[in-house]
């Protein structure tokens, strides 16, 4: 894989945090640490794009803290959808109305599998 050189100036206090984290995470090089930090930030951005919040949850499953940063708040969810009109025959509308009024079939095995793939 092609690599690029990267250089950064860090405050001395940040360097202490960096070294402590590298030790705690057993990450051997700064390049490796940066790659992992990048992957984590990338994941956070993707989750925000999906309209999700990033929270910590305690052992009981209760949300105890939400991660909110100005940078992540700038990530807009990718959910603005345009509106499209479609042509319906009267028979289609009536058929939909009839089917939608009925009690709906339970989720199929395929649907359950699809929705639990995450």
């Amino acid at each position, binding site marked *: 894989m092609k690599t690029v050189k990267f250089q950064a100036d860090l405050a001395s206090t940040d360097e202490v945090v960096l070294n402590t984290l590298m030790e705690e995470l057993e990450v051997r090089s700064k390049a490796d640490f940066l790659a992992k930090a990048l992957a984590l930030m990338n994941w956070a951005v993707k989750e925000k794009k999906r309209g999700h919040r990033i929270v910590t949850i305690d052992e009981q499953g209760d949300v105890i803290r939400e991660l909110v940063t100005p940078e992540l708040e700038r990530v807009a969810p990718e959910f603005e*959808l345009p509106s499209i009109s479609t042509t319906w*025959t009267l028979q*289609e509308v009536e058929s*939909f109305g009839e089917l939608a*009024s009925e009690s*709906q079939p339970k*989720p199929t095995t395929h649907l359950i599998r699809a929705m639990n793939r995450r």
Partner: protein
Amino acid sequence: MDINIRKLESSDRTTDFDCGDAQLNEYLKRYALKDQRRMFGVTYAAVCCEEPPCKVIGYYTLANTSIPRQGLPEEILKGTPKYQGLPAFLLGRLAVDKRYQGKDIGEVLLSRCFEHCLTIAKVSGARYLITDARESAVSWYERYNFRTIVGAANPDSIKMFVDLKVVAQAIDMKASAATTMH
């Protein structure tokens, strides 16, 4: 193979995409980005980014739509604004490159589409996802609780819908408790 699903980007490689349907291929290659820029539709692409540029191996398009009020029973229209149709989502297209078919990528795309709809439904109030399916794809959609609407003007464009309440029920249900739709 690491697959990511996100909005289609101009740098994505679509040139060799081939799902076996010329119209769906052409849409991705020629119109998807244009429509996205003009807000006529949003295309979400399954991309493989092992080597840049990311290669599109599947996609779907999603938009808001509405179902005409005339002909709908009152029980469905109850509580909806009188001046507009019943709000719904439109899954315009869904396609997977032939070389990647049979690997559940269509299911992954559909599950992401459902996820999008459920998230947006929380703020927009739409309850149904509609699609215009090719006849050959009807049985595939039925596996995921889509129901066939009869009365199409064009026999190769069959409207189907799924109630997003059923999709929401499926989340976290165990597969063993499922029933198969007939």
